[in-house]
């Protein structure tokens, strides 16, 4: 590597950096650079987008729930505790080696193995022994995942998890090629070396530029495009410019400033998304420890105006914390997440504050955060007579401040890992590192715990909904709006389907003549 740098310093191949090989058949633009190609570690949205082109899980996300992936079908036992996945015949990794159920089992074991320190290990919770394994109490072998024969994988759960098939579509559940990880522990993710099992393989990756993917000859079907490029473009407007001038076929996120002007175009896809934008309230500070003050703040927010004038991409005003998009879950209706200035003032009066309300809004540098904060500043000072200050911090400083509860209210957002209410509600468990509000409710924690153990779906949904009611009425959140996913897809591309998780499979896309 040292020689590589020296070569760069000497300016050898100065203009060689201009060469980029043949044009791709399909070009997608992502906003952020991928962080990792290790499915066990992936958390970012961009990572997931690329991963879906490189790997295939047992099941793949479809617009109406999971569809067959490398498993052609699966059975669930009557008690909902045993999942048997039947793998397709003749599966191979991209290096030509065979892929069987034991590979899947070993890949899963790798994720929960505390040695791996996987970001996503908690997604396996609910599989028998997973939690004990990842917390180092029992050996990896006691994970409830076995491969009785090369084409069968049996997973045993501790409790029935309705969303388990959805989870199985996620990156940490992908089969990884353990042999190459073992032989090149430090650089198995390098282009050319990365072994995967999806429709494409990684040919090259230059940071902040592009990832070039080429067709995987060992994939079970022939991917429609021979070469696809994922560009990572940091500036939203630059990304849009690339699309607007025909240099890209798919823009995975559209800058909100252009949306009002192109809303009617057929190539723009705006869909509800399983994400919520909200403010955290620090309940360890006075007067925010008083639920009445928190309710007053919530009731004084004109969420309609917020989505109409500030976010402007078709977001919907929040009425709850969990977006109403989770199958089989009805968020509670509460009288506190709406705009009612008179009641807001009454709530505030009831709290009998000794001094006028003084709120500081903490937000991180991005501009939409600033504009939302400005609008709330205006609304709170107008409706409640509060003195509202803004504090803008650089991103990492902001995270540090929220972690150490050094704020009054802080702008936040949450995107579900998988379509399930608990993916949102777990955030505010008393011991969750993402809580960051100082709020803890034993009843809330107990309800979530109960929900994770109950077998009946309707009852589970009721328990979660009850927990969310507590969160909204007593809790530390001010839900603002539900996010939308925005995609621009060239009209000549067919096969683009909407999904509440904004998950799309690149190999389902085709170009019409």
């Amino acid at each position: 590597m040292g020689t590589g740098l020296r070569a760069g310093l000497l300016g050898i191949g100065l203009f060689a950096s201009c060469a980029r090989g043949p044009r791709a058949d399909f070009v997608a633009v992502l906003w952020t650079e991928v962080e990792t190609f290790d499915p066990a570690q992936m958390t970012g949205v961009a990572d997931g987008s690329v991963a879906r082109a490189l790997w295939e899980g047992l099941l793949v996300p479809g617009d109406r729930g999971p569809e067959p992936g490398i498993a052609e079908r699966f059975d669930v036992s009557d008690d909902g505790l045993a999942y048997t996945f039947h793998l397709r015949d003749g599966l191979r990794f991209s290096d030509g080696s065979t892929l069987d159920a034991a590979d899947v089992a070993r890949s899963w074991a790798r994720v929960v193995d505390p040695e791996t320190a996987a970001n996503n290990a908690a997604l396996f919770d609910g599989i028998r022994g997973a939690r004990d394994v990842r917390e180092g109490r029992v050996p990896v072998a006691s994970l409830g995942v076995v491969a009785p024969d090369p084409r069968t994988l049996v997973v045993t759960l501790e409790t029935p998890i309705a969303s388990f098939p959805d989870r199985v579509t996620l990156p940490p559940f992908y089969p990884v090629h353990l042999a190459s990880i073992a032989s090149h522990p430090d650089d198995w993710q390098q282009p050319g070396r990365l072994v995967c099992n999806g429709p494409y393989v990684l040919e090259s990756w230059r940071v902040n530029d592009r990832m070039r993917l080429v067709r995987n000859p060992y994939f079970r079907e022939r991917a429609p495009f021979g070469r696809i490029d994922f560009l990572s473009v940091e500036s939203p407007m630059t990304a849009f410019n690339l699309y607007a001038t025909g240099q890209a076929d798919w823009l995975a996120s559209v800058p909100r400033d252009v949306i009002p002007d192109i809303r009617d175009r057929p190539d723009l896809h705006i869909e509800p998304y399983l994400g919520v934008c909200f403010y955290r309230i620090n309940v360890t500070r006075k007067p925010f420890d008083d639920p009445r003050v928190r309710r007053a703040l919530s009731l004084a927010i004109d969420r309609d105006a917020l989505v109409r004038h500030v976010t402007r991409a078709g977001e919907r005003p929040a009425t709850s914390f969990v977006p109403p998009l989770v199958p089989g879950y009805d968020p509670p209706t509460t009288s506190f997440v709406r705009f009612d200035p008179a009641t807001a003032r009454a709530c505030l009066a009831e709290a009998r504050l000794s001094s006028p309300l003084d709120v500081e809004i903490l937000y991180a540098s991005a501009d939409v955060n600033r504009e939302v904060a400005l609008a709330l500043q205006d609304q709170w000072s107008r409706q409640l007579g509060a003195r509202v200050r803004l504090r803008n911090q650089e991103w990492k400083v902001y995270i540090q401040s929220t972690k150490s509860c050094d704020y009054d209210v802080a702008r936040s957002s949450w995107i579900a890992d998988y379509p399930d209410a608990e993916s949102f509600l777990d955030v505010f468990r008393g011991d969750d590192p993402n809580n960051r509000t100082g709020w803890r409710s034993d009843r809330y924690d107990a309800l979530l715990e109960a929900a994770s153990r109950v077998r009946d779906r309707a009852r589970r949904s009721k328990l979660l909904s009850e927990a969310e009611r507590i969160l909204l009425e007593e809790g530390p959140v001010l839900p603002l709006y539900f996010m939308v996913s925005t995609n621009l897809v060239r009209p000549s591309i067919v096969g683009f389907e909407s999904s509440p998780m904004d998950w799309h499979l690149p190999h389902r896309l085709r170009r019409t003549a």
Partner: protein
Amino acid sequence: MPASIHAFGSVDAALSRFRREPLARAGLIVLVALAATCVVGPAILDRLGIAARTIDLEAQFEPPSFHHWLGADRQGRDLLARLLEGGRLSLAIGILGASVSLALGGAYGAAAGLAGGRTDRTMMRVVDLLYGLPYMVIVILLGAYLGRSVLVLFLALGLVEWLTPARIARGEVARFREREFVLAARALGSTNRAIFRRHLVRNLLPVLVAYLALTVPRVILFEAFLSYLGLGVQPPDVSWGLLAADGVQALTPVRVYWWLVLFPAAALALTLLSLNWVGEGLRAALDPKRRA
């Protein structure tokens, strides 16, 4: 003290030379006019019921009209009012930031030049090294520990921009050190400090003042860069850099809110150009080769 021992001749002579530079004079007039407008303007607009901080989402992106002479921004705030308020801050940041950098750099450079020898070389090597430091770290560091106030911004910008003045000051001082009057003062037994105060400050000041006019634009542009990164001034404060950054944000191939870019850019260009002219004029007026 007779004027002849000053490197640049008398201040009066220099001023009269400055007055003969037409661009410099024009620049000075523009600057004074702009500054006066920014100072007085907001009060007048206030009388008319236009305030820079009033959010009116219904007036979002309103083009220049009778109500909003220069249009309204994304939050429906009056652009003229914001421009005037931003001008105050940008000019203040520019002048104070540049002053901090010149005071710091001037003192450091003069000290190095005056000390001479090994100390001088070491001190200037330190400056060479500091050129290589990532200034972003310094800005974030100050912002994180001292808060993101305008005052901290002055300090940060001053700390980033002090190196060139240090070099200039050191160069000037090194030249003067060898001049007869300093040597004479030394021979008469003055301490370094006394020499410094009595002679060098009066010789150094004009150079640094000329350089000030050229540093202010740098500081203003650096603030604009920070605003572009989201690390500049924060609401409710506003600067021209922030307005320009916001304007560029609204510049899309689909629709151009031209007033949001044009007016802040024009204000910046006019100010910075005038400052450049004034700086050039001062430099020419103080040029020892052209001294009467």
